[in-house]
């Protein structure tokens, strides 16, 4: 069985899980909010150290195996959220309007905030691929089909994808925990925000929100799961037919104003 060949990966994962759960959740007060350190965040960091190429503990083949397992395990997360939503389908349907507006939030967040910043930093066509979505696997497919992955747009989407893989979950976990602890937003709204369309980022963000509002634990997972499902299923069409064309249009309008004209192709990234 080919799985057994990668025993090192699985054994490492088991040891990491046990250590991280034994450390447990820690909170650090920072200004008005709280930085929340969940076992899953240590798991990501310890895992990252174990896979650090210089240490030579695991080889590239084993890292690829870990990546394949990652794809499967996120399915378990989807199932867990599904069984939570099941008994409360009516409740989710009630907030259908709020849920269906989520894609607009993703668009405003990635393009309207991200694109001008990318242009100000001197990125060229890369900024289109980098900011039209949160750049997970389905979004890469869109860019790949339209521009090819060796194009500037392709480099943009791949760079953000790699950043997301490396520290997206840790970043969103800390950010969501901090924002939740500020108590500006209702936990249901935060939960919907957490359903960004990436399994590990959604897990980190909604886990942090749940830890800040344990009394709403079930509802938080309910809304995060529903929002994530909406984004996974409909988000791809929204990206293809709305976000990407609008990003292209905004790029044309904004790049002469914000971009650095002397480097038309933009800086290499």
């Amino acid at each position, binding site marked *: 069985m080919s799985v057994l060949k990668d025993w090192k990966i699985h054994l490492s994962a088991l040891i990491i899980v046990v250590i991280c759960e034994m450390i447990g959740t820690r909170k650090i007060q920072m200004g008005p909010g709280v930085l929340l350190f969940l076992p899953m965040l240590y798991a990501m960091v310890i*895992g990252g150290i174990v896979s650090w190429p210089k240490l030579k503990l695991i080889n590239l083949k084993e890292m690829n195996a870990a990546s394949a397992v990652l794809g499967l395990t996120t399915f378990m997360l*989807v199932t*867990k959220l599904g069984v939570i939503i099941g008994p409360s389908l009516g409740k989710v349907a009630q907030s259908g309007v709020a849920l269906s507006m989520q894609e607009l939030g993703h668009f405003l967040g990635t393009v309207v905030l991200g694109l001008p910043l990318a242009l100000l930093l001197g990125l060229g066509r890369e900024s289109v691929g980098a900011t039209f979505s949160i750049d997970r696997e389905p979004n890469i497919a869109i860019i790949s089909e339209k521009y090819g992955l060796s194009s500037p747009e392709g480099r943009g989407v791949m760079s953000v994808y*790699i950043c997301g*893989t490396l520290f997206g979950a840790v970043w969103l976990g800390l950010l969501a925990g901090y924002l939740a602890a500020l108590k500006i937003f209702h936990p249901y709204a*935060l939960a919907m925000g957490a359903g960004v369309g990436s399994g590990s980022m959604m897990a980190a963000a909604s886990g942090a929100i749940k830890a800040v509002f344990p009394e709403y634990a079930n509802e938080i997972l309910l809304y995060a799961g529903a929002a994530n499902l909406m984004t996974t299923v409909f988000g791809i069409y929204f990206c293809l037919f709305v976000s990407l064309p609008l990003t292209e249009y905004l790029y044309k309008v904004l790049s002469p104003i914000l971009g650095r004209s002397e480097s038309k192709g933009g*800086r290499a*990234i």
Partner: protein
Amino acid sequence: MSWINTIFIFGLIGIMTVAGNSISYPFPASEAAIGYLIMMAITIIGMALGKVIPIKLPMVFWISVIALLSTSPVSPWAKSVTYYTSKVDFLAICTPILAYAGLSVGKDLDQFKKMSWRIVVVALAVYTGTFLMSTAIAQIMLKFEGLI
């Protein structure tokens, strides 16, 4: 990946999940193990459906449908599925997932080192923006609908 491998991997993750679950949460390991096995069955059925049904939708859609139905009022087993699966904490499933995410980090490091700091700033802005804006919109809409 073959089905045998898939099932084997789910089994391994199950051991980790139930172990972590028992350390951090007050649920008996036996009930959590049953809960995990139920979720594993749901996941595998969903994956199989995704392969069989010719409509082009992401596999997570089919898994979600089966999971939703299993605990919705139409399911005759809704009560027991809910009971056992609630014994596996959401966070206990997350820890192994991120452990594997961490263990695959090394393969992307070379490419990451070649990237400019600018794109890293943009990436952080994109993730922050998505979360903030969709939270803000949800807050406004839920208030508007009188749900919060």
